[in-house]
C-alpha cells in the first residue's frame, strides 16, 4: 500500500488517485457495488446507535431533537438498527467478499454476475424498505419478533408491518440468490475441478476429508486425501453458507406467518394470535436466528482468519486438518445451541436448557478457541512480519472475538442468565464487541488484502488515515462495548427506555467511545472516496466493459460454469 502525492482537494475528490473504473471487470464491479452499499449502511447504523446512546443519557442531553426519545420512534430505531447493521451492511460486505473470493480461490468464473447484481440490489432495497417501515410507520416489534408482538395491530399499523416484512423477505431472497451463486460456482466442474466428482466436492466442503485424515493419522494409515478438493477458506464459506441457507428459510417462514396474520386483520378477520404457541415459535425462530450469530458468523470468521493468515504470511496454515475437522464440528454445534436464548423461559424443558443452552454452547469456546490458536500459530511461525494495516486489523479481530466469545459463554449459564439476560451486558460486552470489533476488524483486514485485487492496484489516498481509522475504531469499539456492558451489570436492560438518566454515567462514556467509531467510519470513507474519486464511485455503478466473471485466470480456458 503506497501513499500518493496529494492533488488539489477538488481534483482529488473528483478523480481520486489512479483509480480507473473502466478497467474493472464485471466481477470486480459487482463486488465493489455491494461494498459501497455496505459502508453506507454502516454509517447509518453507527448514527442510529449514537442516537440511542444519547437518548439513554437522559436529561443531560439537551441537543438531541425530542422526537428520538418518543417511545414509538426510539423503538423503531432499535428495530431497524440490527436489520441495517447485520443485513444491509455485514451481509452485503461478506457476500461481496465471498462472491469475489470463491472464483479467485477456486480459479473458476462466478456462476452468474447478473445474479450477484440481483443480490446486492435485493438486499439494498429490502433494507431500505424495512428502514422506512420503522421511520414512517413506527413499526417496532424488534428483530426478535416475539410472537404475537409483530402481529399486534393495536400497537402497530398494518401497512408498516407489511412493508417491514416485504423488506426482510427481499433481503432473504437476495440471500438465497447469493447461496445459489456460491454453490453453483463451487460445484461447477470446470477448471481445476474438471475431474472432481460432486461427492468429492461435498466431502471436502463439509470438512470430512480433514477428519478422515486425522483418523488415518491416528491409525497409522496413509492420508485419506493429500490434496483436498477445496481450499480451507472455501470450505469455511461452503460450511457457513449451509447455516445462511437454513437461517434464511426460518426468517422467511416467520415473515410469511406475520404477513398472513396482517393480511387477515386488514381484511377484518378476527384470528386468534394464540393459535400459534409462543414458546414453540420462540424455539423455531431462535433456532434459525442463532444460525447467524453462532453459525455462519463464527464459521465465516474462522475461514477469513485462515485465509488472511496464509495470505499475510505466505505460508501454509498450521494444523490444516484440525481446522477442517473443527469446521465439521461447528456444523453440529451451531445447530444445537439455540436454547441459550431461552434460559430465562421457565416453560422451556430443563433438559434443553442444560444440554443445548449450556453444554453444547460451551463447545463454541472450543471451536472458536481452536480457530484463534491456529491463526496465531500460523502467524507466529512466519515471524518476523511487518505490521501492515491488514495484520493489525486481523489482530484486532482476534481481540474482538477473544473478548466477546467468553462474555457470551458466561451468560449461557443457568445461574448467571438469571441476572444478565436481556441486560446491556449481552448486548454490548458480547455481540456489539463481536460484530464491531471481532467481525468488522476481520473484514477490514480482508478489505486491505483484497483492495489491490479488486481495484487493479489503486493507490490509497492516505496511510495515516488508515492508521487513524484503525486506532479510533479499535479503542472506540472496545470502549463502547466495555462501558455499556458494565451498565448491564448494574441492571440496565437492553430493550428498555430510560429517560431519567438512570445509567447516564455509563451511557455518556459509551457515547464518547461510540463517537470514536463514528469518526473512524467517516475517516475511512473519506480515505476511500479520495482514493477512487467521485468519478470512480459513479463508474463502479456503470456497466462493465469487460464481462469477465473471474480473477487471475484466462476465462477462455475454463468452460462456462454449470450449476
Amino acid at each position, binding site marked *: 500500500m503506497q501513499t500518493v502525492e496529494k492533488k488539489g482537494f477538488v481534483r482529488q475528490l473528483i478523480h481520486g488517485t489512479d483509480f480507473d473504473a473502466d478497467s474493472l471487470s464485471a466481477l470486480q464491479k459487482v463486488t465493489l457495488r455491494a461494498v459501497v452499499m455496505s459502508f453506507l449502511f454502516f454509517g447509518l447504523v453507527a448514527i442510529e446507535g449514537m442516537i440511542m446512546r444519547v437518548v439513554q443519557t437522559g436529561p443531560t442531553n439537551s441537543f438531541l431533537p425530542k422526537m428520538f426519545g418518543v417511545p414509538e420512534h426510539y423503538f423503531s430505531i432499535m428495530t431497524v438498527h440490527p436489520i441495517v447493521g447485520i443485513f444491509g451492511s455485514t451481509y452485503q460486505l461478506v457476500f461481496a467478499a465471498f462472491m469475489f473470493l470463491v472464483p479467485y480461490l477456486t480459479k473458476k468464473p462466478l456462476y452468474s454476475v447478473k445474479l450477484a447484481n440481483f443480490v446486492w440490489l435485493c438486499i439494498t432495497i429490502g433494507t431500505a424498505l424495512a428502514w422506512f417501515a420503522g421511520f414512517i410507520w413506527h413499526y417496532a416489534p424488534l428483530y426478535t419478533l416475539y410472537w404475537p408482538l409483530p402481529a399486534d395491530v393495536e400497537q402497530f399499523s398494518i401497512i408498516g408491518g407489511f412493508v417491514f416484512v416485504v423488506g426482510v423477505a427481499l433481503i432473504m431472497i437476495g440471500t438465497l440468490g447469493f447461496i445459489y451463486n456460491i454453490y453453483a460456482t463451487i460445484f461447477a466442474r470446470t477448471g481445476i475441478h474438471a475431474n472432481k466428482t460432486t461427492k468429492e466436492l461435498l466431502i471436502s466442503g463439509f470438512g470430512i476429508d480433514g477428519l478422515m485424515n486425522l483418523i488415518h493419522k491416528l491409525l497409522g494409515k496413509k492420508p485419506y486425501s493429500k490434496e483436498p478438493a477445496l481450499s480451507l477458506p472455501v470450505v469455511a464459506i461452503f460450511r457457513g453458507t449451509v447455516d445462511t441457507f437454513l437461517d434464511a428459510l426460518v426468517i422467511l417462514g416467520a415473515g410469511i406467518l406475520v404477513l398472513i396474520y396482517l393480511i387477515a386483520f386488514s381484511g377484518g378477520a378476527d384470528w386468534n394470535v394464540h393459535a400459534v404457541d409462543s414458546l414453540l415459535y420462540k424455539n423455531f425462530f431462535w433456532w434459525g436466528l442463532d444460525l447467524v450469530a453462532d453459525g455462519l458468523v463464527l464459521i465465516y470468521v474462522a475461514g477469513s482468519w485462515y485465509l488472511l493468515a496464509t495470505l499475510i504470511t505466505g505460508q501454509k496454515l498450521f494444523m490444516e486438518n484440525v481446522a477442517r475437522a473443527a469446521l465439521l464440528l461447528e456444523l453440529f454445534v451451531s445447530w444445537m445451541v439455540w436454547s441459550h436464548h431461552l434460559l430465562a423461559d421457565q416453560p422451556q424443558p430443563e433438559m434443553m436448557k442444560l444440554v443445548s443452552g449450556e453444554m453444547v454452547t460451551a463447545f463454541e469456546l472450543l471451536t472458536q478457541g481452536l480457530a484463534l490458536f491456529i491463526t496465531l500459530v500460523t502467524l507466529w511461525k512466519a*515471524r518476523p512480519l511487518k505490521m501492515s494495516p491488514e495484520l493489525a486489523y486481523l489482530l484486532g479481530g482476534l481481540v474482538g472475538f477473544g473478548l466477546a466469545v467468553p462474555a457470551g459463554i458466561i451468560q449461557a449459564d443457568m445461574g448467571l442468565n438469571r441476572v444478565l439476560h436481556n441486560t446491556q451486558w449481552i448486548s454490548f460486552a458480547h455481540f456489539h464487541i463481536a460484530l464491531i470489533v471481532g467481525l468488522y476488524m476481520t473484514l477490514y483486514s480482508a478489505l486491505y488484502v483484497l483492495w489491490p485485487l479488486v481495484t487493479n492496484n489503486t493507490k490509497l489516498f492516505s496511510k495515516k488515515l488508515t492508521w487513524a481509522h484503525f486506532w479510533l475504531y479499535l479503542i472506540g469499539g472496545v470502549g463502547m462495548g466495555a462501558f455499556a456492558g458494565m451498565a448491564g451489570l448494574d441492571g440496565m436492560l437492553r430493550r428498555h427506555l430510560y429517560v431519567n438518566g438512570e445509567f447516564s454515567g455509563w451511557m455518556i462514556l459509551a457515547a464518547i467511545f461510540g463517537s470514536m467509531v463514528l469518526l473512524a467510519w467517516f475517516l475511512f470513507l473519506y480515505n476511500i472516496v479520495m482514493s477512487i474519486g467521485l468519478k470512480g464511485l459513479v463508474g463502479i455503478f456503470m456497466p462493465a466493459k469487460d464481462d469477465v466473471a473471474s480473477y487471475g485466470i484466462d476465462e477462455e480456458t475454463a468452460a462456462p460454469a454449470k450449476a
Partner: protein
Amino acid sequence: MFQTSLELLKFHWMAYTIYALLIVSVIVWFGWNLTRKERVKSVVRIPFYGYIAFLVAGGVGHHIFTYNTIPWVEQDIKRHDITPDKKFEIEVAKHRWTLPAEPMKAKQGQKIAFEVRSSDLTYGFGLFRKDGTLVLQMQVLPKHDNYMLWTFHECGKFDLTSTEYSGPDEYDEAGHDKMLVKDALEIECGPETRVAMNEKEVK
C-alpha cells in the same frame, strides 16, 4: 459461596475484567513480538492438547462452578418438587400488572414462588433493588405457566418492571415506564441477614 446476585455480579465483574486485560495484553505482546527482527524465544510452550483440555475444562467447569456456588441454580431445576413457603400469583395484560390483593410481603430466607401469567404478549418479570441492580428475572410467555422459585437472602423493598420489550405502549408519551411498580415486594429482615442490599430502606 454467593448468596445474592449482587455478590455474584461483583465477582463476575472482577473476573471478566482481569480476563479482558489479560487477553488484550497477550495479543498486544504477540503483535509486538511478531514484528521483532530477532527471533524471540517462547516464554511458555503450550502443548496443543493441553490447550484443548483447558478450553473444554473452561467451558464445562464454568457450569459446574456456578451450579455449586449460586444457590438458585439447583433450586430452579428442582422447583417443581419443592413446596414454597409463600406463593404469589400475578397476571399481566395490556402492559399492566395485576398483583395479589394483599401487598406482597415475605420473610428473608423463605422460599417464594412467583407464578406469572400473560394473556396477550411476551413480557419479563424482573425484580430490582433500589439502586437499579437486578435481583431476578424470568420471561413471561403468553398462555403459559411462568413459574419461578426464589429464596431471598437479602431484605428490603424491591421494584417490579418488565424485563422484556412488549411494544411502545409500555411507556407514556414522555417515555416513562408504565409497568414500573415501586416497592412491589417487601422482604422483612430475618436473623440470618448477611447483606442489607437496600440499606436506606432497611434503616
